[in-house]
């Protein structure tokens, strides 16, 4: 339970729920994938907002957003708003989940699957626009919207790639991912070797001590 007024929170959740369900109806692929996830209950605690809410996937590929739930969630995640924003936008949700400050209880597979479905939602704007505005006008506006989304998606990816290249190549501010992974492997191997050596030393010392007592 949160400290927020339940009516206010219900208003926000109701609006988000309606928008989400409308978007799912306009994205046939996601609709099928969500149907397969039916029965999943996800608990989300946003620590920075002192807010807990639940996402339930019900038959018919509908999403219910709840303020209060007494069922045991399939997965329960706790983190800041920044952590969740990064997770939703992530291309590699498993890595983001491990490396971010998000705490997870329960099944990570259902959470990752859900994130992938949401991130991959391809909404067909044309159908509702054509229905309301007619074939010609609806198609034109849908084309314009597609161009805007396509351009902004391209710009986002390009910015991300260029930023990454600058940090790695030009600024040498962060090491490349492979180099970092190689370094971590080296650290892990060294750590294991040290542990083995320590165990060997302890065994030899114990043996020496027992000889002295004899």
């Amino acid at each position: 339970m949160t400290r927020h007024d339940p009516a206010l929170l219900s208003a926000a959740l109701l609006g988000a729920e309606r928008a989400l369900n409308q978007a799912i109806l306009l994205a046939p692929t996601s609709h099928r994938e969500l149907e397969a996830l039916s029965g999943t209950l996800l608990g989300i605690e946003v620590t920075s907002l002192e807010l807990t809410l639940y996402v339930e996937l019900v038959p018919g590929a509908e999403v219910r957003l709840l303020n209060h739930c007494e069922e045991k969630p399939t997965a329960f995640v706790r983190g800041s708003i920044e952590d969740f924003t990064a997770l939703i936008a992530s291309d590699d949700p498993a890595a983001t989940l491990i490396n971010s400050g998000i705490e997870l209880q329960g099944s990570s597979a259902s959470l990752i699957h859900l994130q992938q479905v949401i991130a991959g939602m391809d909404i067909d704007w044309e159908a509702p626009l054509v229905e309301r505005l007619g074939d010609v006008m609806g198609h034109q506006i849908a084309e314009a919207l597609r161009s805007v989304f396509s351009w902004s998606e391209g710009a986002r990816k390009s910015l991300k790639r260029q930023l990454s290249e600058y940090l790695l190549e030009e600024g040498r501010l962060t090491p490349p991912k492979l180099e970092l992974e190689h370094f971590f492997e080296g650290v892990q191997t060294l750590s294991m070797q040290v542990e083995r050596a320590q165990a060997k030393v302890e065994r030899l010392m114990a043996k020496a001590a027992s000889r002295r007592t004899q």
Partner: protein
Amino acid sequence: MNDDAVGSNNPDDSTDFGFSRVDRTAKASMVREVFDSVASRYDLMNDLMSGGIHRLWKRFTIELSAARAGQTILDIAGGTGDLAAKFSRLVGPDGRVILADINAAMLEVGRDRLIDKGATGNIDIVQADAQALPFEDDSIDCITIAFGLRNVTDKATALRSMLRVLRPGGRLLVLEFSKPTSPLLAKIYDQYSFQVLPVMGKLIAQDSDSYRYLAESIRKHPDQDTLLGLMEEAGFVNGSYHNMTGGIVAVHRGFKA
């Protein structure tokens, strides 16, 4: 706390009807007259009076019910059936929803609405007095009473009757107008209730007196802690309440041990 709160212990055998005192035996029929008058436009008036917020209050109440497939839910004073329709989906074909109200006119509107929404098959409609529920002991998983308890003559008797029919572990949810937590909000709310509400009632339902009664009955209803005490006295355990919209409305929850 008003006289209703102590139920049948009231020595002068009168009770509140809004700000008036009436004979205890007369209150039920007077309340019935009020709801006969407003039944056909009850939902529309609720939407206008609350700006649609009553739907959010009810949504949270449904979440607190934790209703599951196969359960039996009793919605007392369920009138026009908006909670019953939602419970019908949640309990599914193996569950059962009982829509109960003392007022036949409200039940008729509720029945028609439920049929229009296609919510049939697992809903029973029963005309019943909350003080003497015509159901077996330990037969109900969850009881809700939304904006109905304040109209009941003897609240203590009604709460004991609800406890009797609940299964052990079952819960009661009372959604009702309550006392605003901020003095400023209380003043604004008073102005709205006694100046705006009767005018709206006159314009939309052609009945300002009934809506004046609704506003008065809200003021005479026990506040949050008093109602919680009444529920505990009736035998409910683990009682708690949540204020909504600054305490204008509160939802109380109690369990049968």
